């Protein structure tokens, strides 16, 4: 709660128009508990989440239950969202995978200690934008893959390949990643690009 109060009234960026609407919604939820923004985020992500989860063979009913839990977690854990490190879709993806596993395997998925944002740190619009731009390029790279390559990647990130299968799949975007998320994204994008050749 302290974290949220601290941010109140502190505009994230003067260049708000350049930051994606998803991030703007998420920050309004985090900092102002904005219900209209939550509705907008729901309208964008709930159908996608449902489709994404159903692709693993989940029934529509079970998928909806998971979507409901995920969106509730998004609201409750909004204080943990840090746009300097992740775009909204990445953050929600992980929440969704965690919840899906908890439900399907009936076990409590181990998660790392949270990284606390440096207290009092000013939001850095250029860093937020850099994360978003790299994510945008990554999305573009994914959309230009051959169908069979894309299918393998989707299977991997939907949890349908084992660790061994991921290790042995040639061409998955894997490797050592540098010390900053955007460098990591940049490189993943390059590897994806390499797959098309």
């Amino acid at each position: 709660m302290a974290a949220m109060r601290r941010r109140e009234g502190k505009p994230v960026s003067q260049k708000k128009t350049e930051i994606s609407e998803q991030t703007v919604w998420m920050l309004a939820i985090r900092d102002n508990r904005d219900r209209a923004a939550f509705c907008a985020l729901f309208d964008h992500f709930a159908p996608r989440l449902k489709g994404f989860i159903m692709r693993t063979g989940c029934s529509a009913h079970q998928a909806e239950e998971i979507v409901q839990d995920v969106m509730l977690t998004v609201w409750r854990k909004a204080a943990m969202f840090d746009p300097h490190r992740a775009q909204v879709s990445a953050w929600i993806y992980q929440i969704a995978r965690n919840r899906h596993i908890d439900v399907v395997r009936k076990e409590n998925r181990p998660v790392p200690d949270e990284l606390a944002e440096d207290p009092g740190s000013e939001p850095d619009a250029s860093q937020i934008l850099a994360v978003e731009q790299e994510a945008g390029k990554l999305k573009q790279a994914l959309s230009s893959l051959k169908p069979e390559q894309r299918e393998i990647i989707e299977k991997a990130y939907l949890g349908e390949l084992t660790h061994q299968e991921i290790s042995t799949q040639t061409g998955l975007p894997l490797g050592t990643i540098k010390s900053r998320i955007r460098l990591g994204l940049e490189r993943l994008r390059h590897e994806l690009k390499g797959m098309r050749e």
Partner: protein
Amino acid sequence: MTAITHHIPDAMLAAYSAGSLPHHFAVAVASHVSLCPTCRVTLEAHQSVGGALLDATDGVAVSDGMKADLLAQLDAPAPNIAQYTRQGIYPRPVVEALKGQEPKWKTLGMGVRQSILSESKQGSVRLLYIPGGQAVPDHGHNGIEMTLVLQGSFSDETGQFDVGDIEIANEDLDHTPIADEGEPCICLAATDAPLRFNAFMPRLLQPIFRI
């Protein structure tokens, strides 16, 4: 603290992010990521791929009334689920497995102790306590073994492992980890299957100690 030099392979971080790692290895990965900014960044890059795929998914319309139901729940107090955080040398996933309690150590002989955190047919997770200068009995593995150093350090044929370093050994590695001189070495060890000890006595004792 020396820099972490032994990390988690990318494929394993991808599998962890996607949720396809078995529970015992997920505990080890989440524990290492708690200590290692490098692997955290890599994990977050994988989350970005997952996020990009999610964002590009064709939506399936949700039921009427779902949003209204959800909005009605926003003000309800969140269920009171215990939230664990790092305690001393133990990262959150270990504290969670211990349910916030201190480890219950069982002696294995020669000053070596263990505390089993979880065990199933798929594998097990335990804490190992090895006095400085003491060897872990010579052993091989069935499947994969992940060993994360939480205190002190150990060395084996492949190198030295300090706090935060993780050794990932497969069945080909027949190694003898020795805790370095100094404070006791405490490790988190996740294994696919029971360890095979090569010395006669420890093998006999395996069923008793469940190692």
